[in-house]
């Protein structure tokens, strides 16, 4: 499947048994990269099978072992994780070719599908920091661009928020479960990677400003579109809907969506992203006509 230029290390020793039954070992290949701009390379590890393993515990074992299949001592694989129960969104990676959370990628299931090995690689749409760690700050910059918040006057006591229908709450809750994991963006054929190199003599601030500018012009993706949908249906957020709609139809906005609908298929939180995209599309249509005829 992989369109990478680096061949799998087929010549290296493999775990003799990898059918996933207890007491057996299995193979894990990891696409590693020592840092930004460095070449990537595949590395094979043999992991001892244990009950109830997921890809996080596989990586924990690799870290504790820190040896490749051929016994070479290597630095532990770097990866991101935090909650390990699929609510924090940290541990996104590409597992056997498909983007998902490592914590819910159960080893038993993966070995059922492919007894040969488990293949881990970093997301392709974000700059690699190291190994399986990527820089997803673009997503948070997108949320800034879209003004994805409820613009309250103050944090003083002003009584409760507006009443809301159950229907409205349920819709908002589903959208609000988005944990910025980036799966929808990774699987999106229209979302392209942006990787900048820091220029010589450029300060960190200048670099981030340049990066932010580029992020602001690039595609916001399904997660951004759903955020606009969420805040523009909030009774208070709706009051500033125009600002978010302006951002929605600006450069890098909803128009880039190509309706491949991979986003909704890979979303671990089962957020109805394509519904949001269509609703935002409708809002954008109305907004465009208004801008044309009301100016």
């Amino acid at each position, binding site marked *: 499947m992989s369109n990478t230029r680096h061949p799998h290390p087929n010549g290296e020793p493999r775990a003799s048994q990898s059918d996933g039954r207890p007491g057996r070992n299995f193979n894990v290949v990891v696409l590693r990269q020592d840092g930004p701009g460095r070449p990537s390379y595949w590395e094979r590890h043999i992991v001892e099978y244990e009950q109830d393993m997921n890809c996080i515990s596989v990586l924990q074992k690799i870290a504790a072992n820190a040896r490749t299949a051929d016994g070479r001592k290597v630095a532990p694989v770097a990866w991101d994780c935090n909650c390990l129960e699929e609510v924090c969104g940290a541990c996104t990676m590409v597992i056997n*070719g498909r983007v998902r959370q490592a914590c819910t990628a159960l080893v038993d299931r993966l070995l059922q599908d492919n007894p040969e090995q488990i293949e881990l690689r970093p997301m392709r749409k974000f700059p690699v920091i190291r190994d399986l760690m990527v820089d997803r700050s673009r997503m948070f910059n997108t949320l800034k661009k879209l003004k994805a918040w409820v613009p309250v006057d103050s944090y003083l006591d002003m009584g409760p928020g507006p009443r809301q229908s159950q229907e409205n709450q349920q819709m908002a809750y589903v959208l609000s479960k988005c944990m910025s994991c980036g799966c929808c963006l990774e699987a999106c054929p229209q979302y392209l990677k942006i990787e900048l190199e820091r220029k010589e003599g450029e300060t960190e601030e200048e670099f981030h400003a340049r990066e932010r500018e580029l992020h602001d012009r690039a595609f916001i993706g399904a997660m951004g579109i759903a955020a606009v949908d969420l805040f523009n249906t909030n009774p208070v957020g709706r009051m500033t809907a125009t600002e978010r709609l302006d951002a929605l139809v600006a450069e890098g906005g909803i128009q880039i969506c190509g309706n*491949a609908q991979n986003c909704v298929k890979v979303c671990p939180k089962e957020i109805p992203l394509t519904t949001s995209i269509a609703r935002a599309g409708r809002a*954008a249509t109305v907004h465009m006509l208004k801008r044309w005829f009301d100016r």
Partner: protein
Amino acid sequence: MPAIRIENWERFLVSILGPSSPFGQHDFIIRRIHSLVGLVPIGAYLIFHLATNAAIIDGVAAYQHRADQIHRLGPTTIFVLEWLFIFLPILFHGMIGMLIVARGERNVANYPYGGNVRYTLQRWTGAIAFVFILWHVFHMHGWIRAEWWISGVASRFGGHRFDPENAYSAAEAIRASWLIIVLYAIGVLASVYHLANGIWTMGITWGVWTSPHAQQWAKIPCLTFGLLLGFLGLGSLYAMVAAEPPQTLVAPDTANIPPAIHASPRS
């Protein structure tokens, strides 16, 4: 004069194909026009065009009659209409479309979902249809209706095969080679798929069908429409290939046809 340096080309390509839009501020409106133009006039014209051609199913005479009806508008009107409502919109839609194709990263191998397959097909059929239409217009129409072009260039390279006075010339041009027949079949099907699926995605883009249920439901009319139009197109193509030459007319002079095309299996 300094030579154009490679980095500048790279930079140019990145500025066109890189992550940020080549159209800048006007991206949204350009894409919406692109979407709209695909339906009206291009999609509408495709229906009209295939329906017109379908007249040949009833015989060459009916087909000739239909051609006469259209050409009664007169050359100037036709010139304005075809450029304004057909050629320019197709050029616009096709060129923007090619940029859109170039700026996506297809990944159907890793994500073999129905929607992704349709997305990928939409890109492929779009590209195929665009190239096909360019060639098809050259083949039948010749692109430019100036005498120097037609006799000097178009005819010499196998273009301008259609003569409205003798509509049967279209059928002859098509069945000149099995290759042309296959190309026409592919081109027609690609265009039809691109239109039918385009209508479905347009419904999402413009916010007509929003819920998963509605989107699922909307597939039915789009699919039906596509199938009908596909049958119509292929039916016309078959009728073209099978058409009998009109009795009242003399078979056109084939002296100008280059040997490659002339050597059709049917001749």
